[in-house]
C-alpha cells in the first residue's frame, strides 16, 4: 500500500493549468521530496490531497482512502503545514492548539509540551502578534499533535531561521522514525537533497522526473563565476562538464557538472582575481537538465 498514490490526477482552474496527469507513488515510511519552482503546481497537488480542491480528471488515494470520497478519514491521519500560515488572528497560540486538537479528539500531552519547548513558542501570545517564523512553528506543532501517519509539508522552512530549521528537521526525522511518512514540498533543491529519500520534480504542472535522491545528486551542478585579473584575456577551459558559459564583467560564468578537483587544477593556472562557486537556482537546473526530458515525455 502506498501512502500517496495518484493516477493521472489533473486540475484545471477554468482554462488555467494546475497540474496535469500527476502520477505519484509515495511509499509508506519514506521521506518524499516534491520539488519545483513557484507556480509549478506543488500547492495545487497538496490541496487536491486534502480536498480543498477537486480534480478535473484522474484519481488519488492517501493510504487506502480516496481523496474525494473519503477525505474526512484522510484528514484524521494527515498533518499539514501550509506554505503560508493563516490562522485566526484574535486567538492565542494555546487556544488555537486546543481548538485544533479537539477535532482529532486528542489531549495536549507530554509530546506536545516537548514540541512547544523545542520550538520555543509562547502559548499566551496572540496569533496576530506572531512573526512569520513563529506562525510556521505553530503550524508545525498543530500538524503533529495527533501523531499523523502522513505529514504533508508545503515549503515548511520558509520563515524559519537556520537554528530553527535544524530543530524542525530533527522533529520531522523523529516523526519519520516513529513511522510517519513525510511528503516534503519545496523549491530549495539542497534542502530536499539533505532530507529526502526520493524526489519528484514538477514543472509547469507535470512531473518531469521521479527518482532516488542519489540519482538527482548525480545531476548536481554548480555555478562557477570567475573574475580575471586581465579582462582582455580570453579563456578556453578544457575540463569536461562545462555547460552554457557566458561572459560577465571581467570574466566568465558557467554551469559545471563534473569533477570539481580537475576544474580547480585548471583554474589554478589562470590569472584569476576572484572565484565564486554556488548552487545554481532551481530554475537553471530545470532549464538545462529537465527541459529536454520533459519534451521527450510529452512526445
Amino acid at each position: 500500500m502506498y501512502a500517496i498514490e495518484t493516477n493521472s490526477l489533473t486540475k484545471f482552474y477554468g482554462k488555467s493549468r494546475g497540474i496535469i496527469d500527476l502520477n505519484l507513488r509515495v511509499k509508506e515510511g519514506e521521506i518524499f521530496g516534491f520539488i519545483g519552482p513557484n507556480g509549478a503546481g506543488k500547492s495545487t497537488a497538496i490541496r487536491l490531497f486534502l480536498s480543498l480542491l477537486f480534480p478535473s480528471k484522474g484519481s488519488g488515494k492517501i493510504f487506502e482512502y480516496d481523496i474525494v470520497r473519503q477525505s474526512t478519514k484522510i484528514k484524521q491521519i494527515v498533518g499539514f503545514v501550509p506554505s503560508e500560515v493563516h490562522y485566526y488572528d484574535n486567538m492565542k497560540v494555546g487556544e488555537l492548539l486546543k481548538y485544533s486538537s479537539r477535532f482529532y479528539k486528542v489531549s495536549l500531552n507530554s509530546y506536545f509540551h516537548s514540541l512547544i519547548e523545542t520550538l520555543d513558542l509562547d502559548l499566551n501570545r496572540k496569533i496576530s502578534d506572531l512573526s512569520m517564523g513563529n506562525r510556521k512553528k505553530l503550524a508545525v506543532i498543530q500538524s503533529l499533535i495527533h501523531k499523523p501517519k502522513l505529514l504533508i509539508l508545503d515549503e515548511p522552512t520558509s520563515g524559519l531561521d537556520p537554528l530553527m530549521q535544524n530543530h524542525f528537521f530533527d522533529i520531522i526525522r523523529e516523526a519519520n522514525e516513529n513511522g510517519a511518512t513525510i511528503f516534503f514540498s519545496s523549491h530549495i533543491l539542497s534542502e530536499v537533497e539533505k532530507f529526502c529519500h526520493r524526489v519528484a520534480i514538477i514543472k509547469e504542472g507535470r512531473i518531469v522526473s521521479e527518482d532516488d535522491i542519489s540519482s538527482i545528486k548525480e545531476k548536481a551542478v554548480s555555478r562557477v563565476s570567475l573574475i580575471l585579473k586581465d579582462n582582455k584575456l580570453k579563456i578556453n577551459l578544457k575540463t569536461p562538464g562545462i555547460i552554457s558559459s557566458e561572459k560577465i564583467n571581467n570574466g566568465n560564468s558557467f554551469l559545471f557538472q563534473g569533477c570539481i578537483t580537475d576544474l580547480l587544477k585548471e583554474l589554478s593556472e589562470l590569472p584569476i582575481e576572484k572565484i565564486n562557486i554556488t548552487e545554481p537556482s532551481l530554475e537553471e537546473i530545470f532549464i538545462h537538465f529537465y527541459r529536454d526530458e520533459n519534451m521527450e515525455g510529452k512526445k
Partner: protein
Amino acid sequence: MSKNLILKEMKRNLKDFLTGSLIIISLLLMTMGMYSSMEENMALISELYSKMPKFLLEAINFRQDQWTSILGFYLTYFVYYIPLMGSVFSIYLGTKILSNEEQNKTAEFLLSRPLTREQIISSKLLVLSFYILVINILAFLAGMISCGIISDWEINIHSLIVLHTYGFLLCLFFGVLGFFITVLMKRAKAIIGTGIILVMGLYFFDMIIRISNNFKFLLYLTPFKYLDLRILTQNYDFEVWRLIVFIGSSGILIFLSFMFYRRKDILI
C-alpha cells in the same frame, strides 16, 4: 455538526450579534419611548402628515388610522427595525460567517481538519439561525414590553407573536440567501457589501412598486411582499401559504448550499 466548530463560531460572531441587537433594540425602545409625547400632539402630527403626498406616506408605511392605536404605531416603525435592519443584519452575518474563512485564508486550516463539508456548513448555519432567532426574540420582547407598558397591557400579544414570526422568517430567509450566495461565489471578496446592497435594493424596489399603480405583480419578486403586516385587522393570524413560502424558499436555499459546497473548490 461539529460541537467544536459551533462553539468557535458562536464566540467568533458574538460581537456582531451584540452590536446588531443593541442597535435594533435600542432604536425600537427609543421609538416607543417617544409614543407618549407624540400621543399628546397626535392631532398636529396627523395634520402635518396629511399635507404630505399620499405616495410618500405609503412609501414610509404611514397610515393615519394606524397611529390611533399602540400596535399601529408600533407597526409603523417595526418595518424599519425588523424587515429592514434585521434583514440587513441577517444577510451580513449570512455572508460573513462563511466568506470570512476564505477572505482571512483560514479556510485552509478549517478544511484540513477531519470534518466533512456538510459538518462545516450545518454548524455554521446553526449558529447563523441561532443568532437570527435570538435577535428576533429580543426584538419581540422589547416590543411586547414597551407596547404592554404604554397600553397597560391592553394589547393583543398573539398578533405581536404573528407579526414577529413573519419578521423572523424574513430575516432567516435573507440570512440563508447570504449564505447561499457565498457558497455560489468562486471567490468571496466583497460579498458582504453585495449582500447588504441586495437587501436594501429589494426593500426600495418593494417600496417603489407599492406606490406605483402599475407593475404591482412585480411585488411578488421581493420577499417583503410575503410579510403580513395587517396586524390591525380582525382575525390576524398565521397564513399557511406565507409560512410555506418563507420556510420552503429558505429550505431550498439550504439544500442548494449543501449541494454546491460539497464540491466547491476553495481558492485561497
